């Protein structure tokens, strides 16, 4: 779990991974390697204060070179909320996250529909599954050129959509993946939906999928 100055969901992500039986460690952003991990989570928060734009400065942190290299060789990478913004700024995912259309900070439970199971975050889910997962963001309005949107649709790279669009995102997009399907970005927070005490356990199927991808990598001896 990558930690930038200003990240604030890294412990939630670490706890969620551990609760689901995985091992987790924090990777400080100045670290130029990913320490041989089997999966990377770029967590939510306000990396580098969101100065200039969310993710604009984080993408130059030394760890991001290592995350890009890890992603390029097929390593599973998931960016959650601010982490999604960082991955778009870093060019690992297309498009951008703009201010919410309603200009409101939105913090609520949302219902997501799983659109593909061919990604490191949804392999355990079923297409059409509706998952209750919280959102908590000001800049989550997914924006991309018409060509990019057409490509995402044609290649089945829209991973989850909002059932009731809370922020103006193009095509109700809540999360997408790269062409290799090993890099996923989404605005909702699955790590905050892993216990009944948190109001939903629907994040379990998503993060368990990621742990499966990590385990597959270990098994393959990569």
């Amino acid at each position, binding site marked *: 779990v990558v930690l930038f100055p200003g990240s604030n969901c890294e412990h939630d992500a670490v706890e969620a991974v551990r609760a689901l039986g995985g091992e987790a460690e924090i990777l400080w952003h100045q670290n130029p390697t990913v320490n041989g991990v089997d999966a990377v989570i770029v967590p939510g928060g306000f990396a580098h204060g969101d100065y200039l734009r969310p993710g*604009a400065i984080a993408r130059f942190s030394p760890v991001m070179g290592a995350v890009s290299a890890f992603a390029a060789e097929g390593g599973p990478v998931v960016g959650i909320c601010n982490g999604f913004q960082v991955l*778009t*700024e870093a060019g690992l995912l*297309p498009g*951008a996250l*703009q201010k919410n*259309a*309603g*200009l409101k900070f939105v913090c609520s439970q949302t219902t997501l529909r799983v659109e593909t199971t061919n990604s490191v975050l949804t392999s355990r889910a079923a297409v059409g599954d509706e998952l209750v997962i919280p959102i908590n963001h000001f800049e989550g309005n997914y924006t991309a050129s018409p060509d990019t949107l057409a490509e995402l649709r044609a290649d089945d790279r829209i991973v989850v959509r909002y059932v009731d669009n809370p922020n103006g995102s193009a095509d109700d997009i809540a999360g997408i993946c790269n062409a290799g399907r090993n890099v996923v970005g989404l605005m909702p927070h699955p790590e905050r939906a892993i216990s009944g005490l948190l109001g939903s356990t629907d994040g379990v199927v998503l993060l368990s999928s990621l742990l499966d991808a990590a385990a597959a990598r270990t098994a393959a001896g990569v």
Partner: protein
Amino acid sequence: MTFDVTVEVHLRPGIADPQGATIERSLPHLGFDGITGVRVGKLITFTLDAADEASARREVDDMSHRFLTNPVIEDASVRIVAGAGASA
């Protein structure tokens, strides 16, 4: 030479601007009528040492594209003026 640089960052035409729209909706409440097309951007100013104006412009264009703007949603216009410390 030293150059005073001003980079204006604006949302590309066609990209929704919820801040601009909110300001536009608010203005009539203060009695300012007949205003349309409000857009909100950013102004970034700095001084830059470069051999000449052409190389200053190349450097600023490069940083605008790679860092100061997100080309998916933003454009920049750049103004470069030979600064007070510049030799003629």
